[in-house]
């Protein structure tokens, strides 16, 4: 059978690649064919003044934190703007890492259009205290696709803190693929800060594998971009691996964010937790799709996921799709999802003590997302991101 499809202008600009649409299983709430309503041609180098880069870089709440910083500007790795890790135990190899074949649309986009990337290696047994930040900046220019690819390999018994920050100005489509391998007994504290420009589109694909006894603490703050889709697959590939995956949404206006996680327990005695706290105001729309797969033989699996939505307006929306696929019999798995508005008793209590309504609401929003933020091990990072949450409501001027 042959069905003729009229490609959209966005698809034509992407070399005729068809974008995912609502009839596809994981994409029912996020129809990229209609949501990406204009072309974002890929490629093309854009020269930027150093001053401009510095200005953008300094808007990051983590800018003043001591960290190694690996900076991408408009899809190109900029060694000149980067501050390389001091430790000889961290290796950085510029250039596109290999991507494992996938027909997942966001990954395919990256396979086709990634222009630059790097491979980050942490030697076995090394404890890297200073956080390493991957900073992806997009400067204002004509609408375009910016795609990057990073591979991270954390050796057995090593530990590190990795931050991925996305920021920019203007209208662009950022596509990012990151694959992370944690060796036996390795520990990674991973923080992602998505603060793309309000006119931007953010399409991310993550693939994380944990060997035995590896520990992952993973937090993503989704606050920027008009359209956000984040896919992540986590494979617990060795016994006693432990993954805690948390996220928070702070969405207003007509922002749309859709997170799709697949956590696969491939070996026995592993633990996974997913905790997402999503705040939506105005006409914002949040989606959380979480799937836990327990392979045959992965006994004693402990896997739980929860998503909680706070809707600050009548027109905000949240959809959750929790899924469990269990092929072992001795497991503890569960999921929960809640959705509600601000508790009026909480609000009155704060106001009765003299806290004005706006400030009281901001406090309650920060309190709501708090549990997800607890996943961030580094105090400095937690405080900096916490300030974003506290200041979020006030910074928007919108809701009352």
């Amino acid at each position: 059978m042959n069905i003729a499809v009229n490609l959209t202008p966005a698809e034509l600009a992407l070399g005729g690649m068809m974008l995912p649409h609502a009839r596809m299983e994981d994409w029912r709430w996020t129809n990229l064919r209609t949501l990406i309503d204009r072309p974002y041609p890929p490629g093309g180098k854009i020269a930027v003044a150093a001053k401009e880069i510095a200005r953008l870089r300094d808007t990051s709440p983590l800018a003043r934190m001591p960290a190694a910083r690996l900076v991408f500007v408009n899809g190109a790795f900029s060694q000149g703007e980067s501050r390389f890790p001091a430790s000889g135990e961290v290796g950085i190899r510029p250039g596109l890492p290999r991507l494992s074949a996938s027909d997942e649309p966001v990954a395919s986009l990256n396979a086709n259009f990634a222009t630059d990337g790097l491979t980050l290696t942490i030697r076995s047994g090394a404890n890297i205290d200073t956080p390493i930040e991957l900073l992806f900046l997009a400067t204002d220019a004509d609408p375009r696709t910016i795609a990057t690819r990073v591979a991270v390999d954390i050796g057995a018994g090593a530990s590190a803190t990795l931050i991925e920050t996305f920021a920019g100005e203007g209208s662009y489509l950022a596509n990012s693929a990151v694959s992370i391998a944690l060796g036996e007994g390795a520990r990674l504290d991973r923080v992602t800060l998505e603060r793309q420009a309000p006119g931007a589109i953010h399409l991310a694909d993550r693939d994380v594998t944990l060997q035995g006894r590896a520990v992952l603490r993973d937090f993503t703050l989704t606050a920027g971009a008009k359209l956000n889709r984040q896919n992540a697959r986590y494979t617990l590939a060795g016994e006693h691996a432990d993954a805690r995956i948390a996220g928070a949404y702070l969405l207003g206006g007509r922002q749309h964010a859709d997170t799709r996680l697949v956590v696969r327990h491939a070996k026995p005695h592993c633990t996974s937790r997913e905790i997402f706290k999503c705040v939506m105001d105005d006409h914002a729309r949040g989606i959380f799709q979480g799937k836990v797969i327990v392979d045959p033989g992965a006994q004693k699996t402990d896997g739980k996921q929860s998503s909680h939505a706070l809707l600050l307006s009548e027109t905000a929306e949240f959809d959750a799709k929790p899924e469990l696929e269990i092929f072992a019999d001795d497991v503890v798995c569960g999921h929960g999802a809640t959705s509600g508005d601000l508790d009026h008793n909480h609000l009155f209590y704060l106001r009765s003590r003299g806290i004005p309504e706006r400030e009281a609401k901001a406090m309650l929003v920060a309190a709501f997302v708090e549990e997800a933020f607890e996943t961030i091990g580094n105090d400095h990072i937690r405080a900096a991101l916490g300030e974003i949450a506290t200041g979020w409501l006030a910074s928007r001027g919108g809701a009352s």
Partner: protein
Amino acid sequence: MILNGLSLTVNAGEVHAIMGPNGSGKSTLSYVLSGREGYVVTQGSVTYRGQDLLAMEPDVRAAKGVFLAFQYPIEIPGVATMQFLKVALNAQRKARGEKELSTPDFMRLVKARAAKLGVSQDMLKRAVNVGFSGGEKKRAEILQMAVLEPSLCILDETDSGLDIDALRIVADGVNALRSPDRAMIVITHYQRLLDYIVPDVVHVLSQGRIVKSGGKNLAHELEERGYAQFEKDAA
């Protein structure tokens, strides 16, 4: 109609007790005075220091000195007690055009007041009222009152759930706040509290109205004769 035909004048420096059976409207009165939403005042007015209290938002009332110690203090997970208190105090000071308190000054103030009320450092480290016992919640309310230094204190059944030792501590805390420019409305179901916080005037509330007012001995009379008798007299 929960409150009907209620009339009450409280002057600065006075402590008024309001006693009444369950469901007589005591908490409703405290909520109407502090500005909780969900109550419609269809008739009457509340004047506070010459201003129309009912026209003010709850936080404005607080900044002007109205404080309600809740019958059931609310737990707010995720909001740290110290941060909450500091934001509240400084919001009030700001609203009154006073200088905001620095963190060290604030810490000193809270620590001193907390010690007097037997509120532990551990409690202060927790989220607002979360994991507090009934008695701890009541003490925390009085601590907030001691830190915020309101000019009209409304205490809604602050004695309920307190053992005798805790009652003494709380009453001492309240008495320490008695001053010529501060008024208090002490709501209680039992006369016991009024042995410790001795009121200037006692009112009996029944079915949303004050059916009798008198001196502190009225509380004892109530205790002996019971509310039923008063309700009958009033009918």
